[in-house]
């Protein structure tokens, strides 16, 4: 009998069904890989398991008895612990204090430090880290060791089920290798482990069995189980097969694309490296060309764009626009004819409380007046004509951006770049969270800009649009560009395989 059973779990958020009758059973001493694209329902499933949210339907059993956690603490007390992608540690507390946070051994409120430190030391020794000092402040440990602390937290209080959510996304290869050792030792000691990862080689290395999720459902395996449970031994699956199961959907969106002819090189990036990401980026971008950047979350797509624009610190390398070296931050980028659209429209992209006109003219106010005095009339007239040509639905350019729909907000943000007449558009997830019609309009804007001889760098996590819109696509993996090919030579499967290192 499986140690952990999840049967027929469903969960909806508003109109979207995040999970549709998903079942999963994991034995003690088994490492189960859980894979799927972004938004396939992996994290919803794990949040239910960890007691963060409750399912609309379905039930769970743990060691044969009913398991319905009311909160993460409750889940932990019942023996289910989660090792998060973004570590949930208190940097100012010591290793021992973090491991027992919320469950400190104490007498009348006074900590029993010896007990605390002894039990923490024991847990660390079991994980193969007997030398890690339990007194060290966690904030002073390297990332890899912080992760060990988080795992020790699960082991020290005797959790039998441990969930890893993208544990290696911020680790170096050696550290990842040591983490695999820890996962294997958990299996040896009879823990049930659920291991979520985008990296297929990694899944292959540590997982005994694999379950694939797609669109909130478990993808049926070879056995063709109809009851919703499905997993296959890792060894019986090829990477190609896993990728096929992850993607398996048709593409039916409209991507307008005119006949474009790339002109001369306008952007040159040479061995550009940021603090952590990106690493050693080389790329060139021609006038009239749309270059797509694909990659998994955390692969360094956004960081690449921000480094090119000068928004994040650059450690090494250089960026040239039309042969001129970029020196300085966003201000000089604008002056050199480069504009950027942030992926975070609400926080970073737009000033929501200001009007459409204000937002569109912000980077080039000097055009509308002299000596710091701005002619509002000129400003609004320009904004108005742009709003019309972009098809922004509004009562007037004096309307607050906060009142617009997501798609129209995004058009304002892109309009800002076009109004400023930049030569190079850096777009980060320009279609995130907006409806299909607006998406199509934005694809049109991109196409039109390229026709006019502008260069576009287009970062997206949605592969169909990259394949539909771009001339070339660069795929990133762990901070580096793994491969760049003309869009016509890529397939969705090929991009995923490249991004996951399959």
């Amino acid at each position, binding site marked *: 009998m499986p140690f952990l059973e999840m049967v027929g779990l469903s969960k909806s958020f508003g109109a979207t069904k995040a999970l549709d009758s998903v079942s999963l059973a994991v034995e003690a001493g088994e490492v189960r890989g859980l894979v799927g694209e972004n938004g396939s329902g992996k994290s919803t499933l794990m949040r239910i398991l960890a007691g963060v949210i409750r399912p609309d339907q379905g039930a769970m059993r743990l060691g044969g008895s009913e398991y319905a956690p009311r*909160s*993460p*603490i409750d889940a*932990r*007390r019942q023996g289910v612990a989660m090792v998060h992608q973004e570590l*949930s*540690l*208190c*940097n*100012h*507390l*010591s290793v021992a*204090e973090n491991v027992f*946070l*919320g*469950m*400190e051994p*104490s007498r009348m*409120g*006074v*900590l029993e*430090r010896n007990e605390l430190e002894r039990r923490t030391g024991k847990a660390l020794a079991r994980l193969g880290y007997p030398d890690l*000092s339990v*007194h*060290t*402040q966690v904030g002073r440990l390297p990332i890899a060791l912080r992760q060990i602390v988080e795992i020790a*937290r699960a082991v020290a209080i005797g959790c039998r089920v441990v969930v890893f959510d993208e544990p290696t996304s911020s680790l170096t290869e050696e550290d990842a290798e040591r983490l695999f050792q820890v996962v294997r030792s958990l299996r040896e000691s009879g823990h049930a482990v659920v291991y979520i990862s985008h990296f297929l080689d990694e899944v292959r290395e540590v997982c005994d069995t694999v379950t694939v999720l797609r669109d909130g459902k478990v993808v049926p395996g070879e056995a063709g189980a109809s009851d919703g449970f499905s997993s296959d031994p890792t060894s019986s699956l090829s990477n190609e097969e896993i990728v096929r199961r992850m993607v398996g959907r048709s593409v039916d969106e409209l991507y307008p694309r005119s006949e474009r002819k790339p002109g001369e090189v306008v952007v040159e990036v040479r061995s550009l490296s940021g603090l952590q990401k990106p690493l050693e980026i080389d790329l060139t971008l021609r006038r009239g060309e749309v270059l797509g950047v694909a990659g998994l979350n955390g692969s360094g797509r956004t960081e690449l764009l921000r480094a090119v624009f000068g928004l994040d610190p650059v450690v090494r390398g250089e960026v040239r626009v039309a042969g001129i070296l970029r020196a300085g931050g966003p201000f000089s980028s604008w002056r050199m004819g480069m504009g950027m659209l942030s992926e975070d429209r609400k926080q970073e992209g737009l000033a929501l409380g200001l009007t459409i006109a204000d937002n569109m003219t912000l980077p080039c106010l000097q055009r509308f007046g002299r000596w710091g005095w701005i002619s509002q009339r000129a400003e609004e007239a320009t904004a108005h004509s742009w709003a019309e040509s972009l098809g922004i639905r509004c009562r007037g350019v004096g309307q607050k951006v906060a009142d617009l729909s997501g798609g129209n907000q995004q058009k304002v943000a892109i309009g800002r770049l076009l109004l400023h007449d930049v030569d190079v558009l850096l777009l980060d997830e320009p279609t995130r969270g907006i409806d299909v019609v607006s998406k199509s309009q934005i694809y049109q804007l991109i196409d039109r800009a390229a026709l006019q001889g502008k260069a576009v760098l287009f970062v997206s996590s949605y592969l169909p649009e990259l394949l539909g819109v771009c001339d070339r696509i660069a795929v990133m993996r762990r901070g580096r560009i793994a491969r760049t090919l003309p869009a016509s030579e890529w397939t969705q499967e090929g991009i995923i395989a490249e991004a996951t290192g399959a």
Partner: protein
Amino acid sequence: MRRSETWRGVLNTASLLAAWLLIFLVFSLLRPDSFPTARNLETILRQSTIVAMSALAMTYVIISAGIDLSVGSIAACVSVVIAVLLKEGHGPWTAVAGGLACGAAIGLANGLLIARLKVGPFIVTLGTYLIVRGAAKGLGQEQTVDPQRQVWLNDLLGSLAPEERWRIFPNGIWLLIALAVLAAVTLRHTRFGRHVVAIGSNEQAARLCGVNIEATKVWIYTLSGLFAGLSGLMLFSRLRLGDPTAAVGMELEVIAGVVIGGASLSGGEGSVVGSIIGVLIMYTIRSGCAQYGLPNWVQEIVTGAIIVAAVALDRLRVRKTA
């Protein structure tokens, strides 16, 4: 090195102490006759005590990434409550109990609003800062309240008579020392203390680990109210009357002392002993400037500069070691 964190804490406290001694030395050289005397040192300590009382609990508040702007108003209000109770003929113990209960109750209200209604602590305590100040004025009918009684409360911060010299300090200072030790030990060696640090360091993580965030915050602000009440008691003892307009701006001195003492307004960092030394540094400068004959406005400029310099130095140090 094992116990490295303890050493770091000791080092931090030692460098603060060194800074204080340096400041003391400079003024001693400038005014060798009057500044480095036992009497002057005692005066500085007595003046610091009012602010230092509140700084003890404010250290907890700031470590938890919170802020309490109402402590000055609470101190004034409590001094009025004590004076009124004495004037109405109650005994000094009753008056003290009433005053402290009043302070703790206001702190409890702060805590409940912050923890339950999730209103930011800045806003909540900005509100109570005004409300409590107003209430104090109403209670005192916009004047000072003089109980016109000779009670032992008046001597908590007074100079010691020659035959009592063996006590070294007046009782108020001894109380401060005892409470400081208690607060320092609690912060480091109890679950409550560790939870305060955890909340300030990473509230999400603390919640995930089952720390009762609400209860902890309610306790923190209740303690802050209680200790502000103790400041009020010391204030009463010094003025010998209840003054609803006293201690205006005290909350900023308290916060400044805590921050000079190494606490970070973004939470997770701070030490009780550091905060006390921070307050002492401010009052030493003030006393030195006064004895050097510098006018009040120069003192204010110097104090402000010291606050900014202390924090800037600390950040520089952190960046170096990080």
